[in-house]
């Protein structure tokens, strides 16, 4: 959103609705999927005197769906005033890079082991954060690898 749009309140309206609607679709959709697909498939009916295993999850999912609709309506009426922080958000690419590093580490952990996975995570995160000094890139992951090795060797 550019400066002009920020100054002129009316121009923020078109960008608010798609975002709020997308949020409603994600949260509300997840709620409906939970009620009609996931919970029936993942719970079994019970013959016990008490409540069915699906009772509390269904109530929770329904409540989440209802609140998501209420949030959308409320935010629309308030013209997004309680969602105004959205414009101030940091670029998501940095967090995505860190998440990518974590996913790569999880993959390596699954394939090779925790020691290598954790060391790789430390190295990748240091690189993403802009660390380029070779000795630091060796020191931090190296110390962590040594710590993990000792922890595993001690049988914790």
């Amino acid at each position, binding site marked *: 959103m550019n400066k002009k749009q920020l100054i002129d309140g009316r121009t923020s309206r078109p960008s608010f609705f798609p975002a709020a609607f997308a949020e409603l679709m994600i949260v509300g959709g997840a709620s409906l999927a939970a009620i009609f697909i996931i919970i029936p498939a*993942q719970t*079994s009916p019970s013959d016990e005197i008490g409540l069915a*295993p699906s009772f509390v*999850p269904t109530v929770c999912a329904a409540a989440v769906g209802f609140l998501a609709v209420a949030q959308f309506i409320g935010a629309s009426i308030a013209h997004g005033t*309680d969602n105004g922080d959205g414009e101030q958000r940091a670029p998501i690419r940095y967090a995505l890079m*860190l998440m990518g590093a974590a996913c790569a580490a999880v993959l390596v952990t699954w394939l090779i082991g925790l020691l290598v996975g*954790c060391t790789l*995570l430390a190295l990748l995160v240091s690189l993403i954060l802009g660390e380029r000094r070779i000795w630091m890139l060796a020191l931090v992951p190296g110390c962590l690898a040594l710590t993990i090795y000792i922890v595993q060797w001690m049988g914790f």
Partner: protein
Amino acid sequence: MDVFLLGAQDAFSLTAIGAVICGIVLGYLVGVLPGLSRPAALAIAVPITYYLSPVSAIAFLVGVTKASTAGGATGAIMLNTPGEPSSAATCFDGYPLARAGHATKALKVALYASVFGDIVATLVLIALAKPLATFALKMGPMEMTSVMIFALTFIAALSGKSLLKGLIAGIFGIFLSTVGLDPESATPRLTFGMIELWDGVPLVAATVGMLAFTEMLVQGESYLTRLKTTGKMPELVKPRGSDLSWREIARIIPTTIRSTGIGVAAGVIPGLGPTIGAFLSYAVAKKSAKPGDRFGKGEIKGVAATEAADNAVLPASLIPLFAIGLPGSVSAAILVSAFMIHGVIPGPLIFEQHPRLMYGIYVSMIIASICMLLVGRVGLHVFAKIGNVPLTIIIPVVMVLCMMGSFLEKHILFSVYMMVMLGILGYFMQRYGYSVVTFLIGFVVGPIFELSLRQSIIVSNRQPGLILDHPIAIAFLAMAAIAILVFVRPRQGAVLASGDDKSPAE
């Protein structure tokens, strides 16, 4: 008396005292280092306690929590960068004092006020928790369900910018806590055929992922954004200057006592937390300023007010936890997970089932307060220098500790995968205004809530009208409804206190 002595004996054991001291040192480091918050540090500290006795484990975590609160002031005074969100108010007067060459004085005021607030709040906890637990035992499932609905509503209202988003997060936490075996029929529920989920979503993976891992993603993102825009880090002020005189100590005593009271009140009410307590206390101190007081320009009363209140919150927030099993803050919620790891369920029955443990914890808390004073005083200048450790070291180290910590819970890689998944989910929740604090409290109280709700429905024979026979339950539900009406409109007050995206309950 015998049980008390046995508890004290446990607390005075070498392991327990060692755990307290280690916790205090770790807590100070956490508090001093910008970027590593108390809940995140507590979450990654929980796995360390697997191999400790229950008293030592809780003492260690209490040490971490208490000292991180006190240590948070160091960054606020020396760097104008609070180590903890709750120490943000300390910047108002602490940093000007440091800039004026009174850094040592400000650090000492912060330390003494912290220790005072902490000890008094611990004594209040000891005095109130058991009588309240005795009262809570008279409450039935309907009352307990209502109390939990009220507390979750209140926490949701205060822990973010939108009550409805807070409630969504809290209810989602309860939803996720239902994964595992059904408590009545013992049939798998929402496990997707994975045996690893039969015991539910791993508690440590959830807390570590949602708090520590998410926090590191947020910190990394903010670090990189700041680096691209300014490329500058705040300048460290050298700790030097005049010492604290007796006259100045006498000046801050009334403020410290009043602020401790405010902190205790903020701790007892679920959801308020240390940030609101500290800001409220600062506001009250400033309002009752006398001629000559220099609030905002370097006033020791301002530092004392925020630090006393900040440190009084944690022990007070344990009152609802011990009395009715309800964690009033995220730190208390993490302590619940530590209790559960050691086979203890916090709640009114804890005083009957584990009296020795409770007395041990009480004595450990007092020991932790004294250790906090000693360690804080000895390491005053050392801790001030540690605040310079760059985030390029902190973030990779903490992320690796998150992986290790979640693995150590059950020694299965599944916990690591869950932790990373929940960490990523927590990041997106935080980014779009869904409080991870409310989520976590919902997740922790979920099993107790479900049990109470089931019991209520069975006891009432599925007739909602029978709630009219339970006035306490009606009162709490009415308060929850009022809270919704008051907080449902867009607010600025709740975020005003925190001053950043951190929720007050943190």
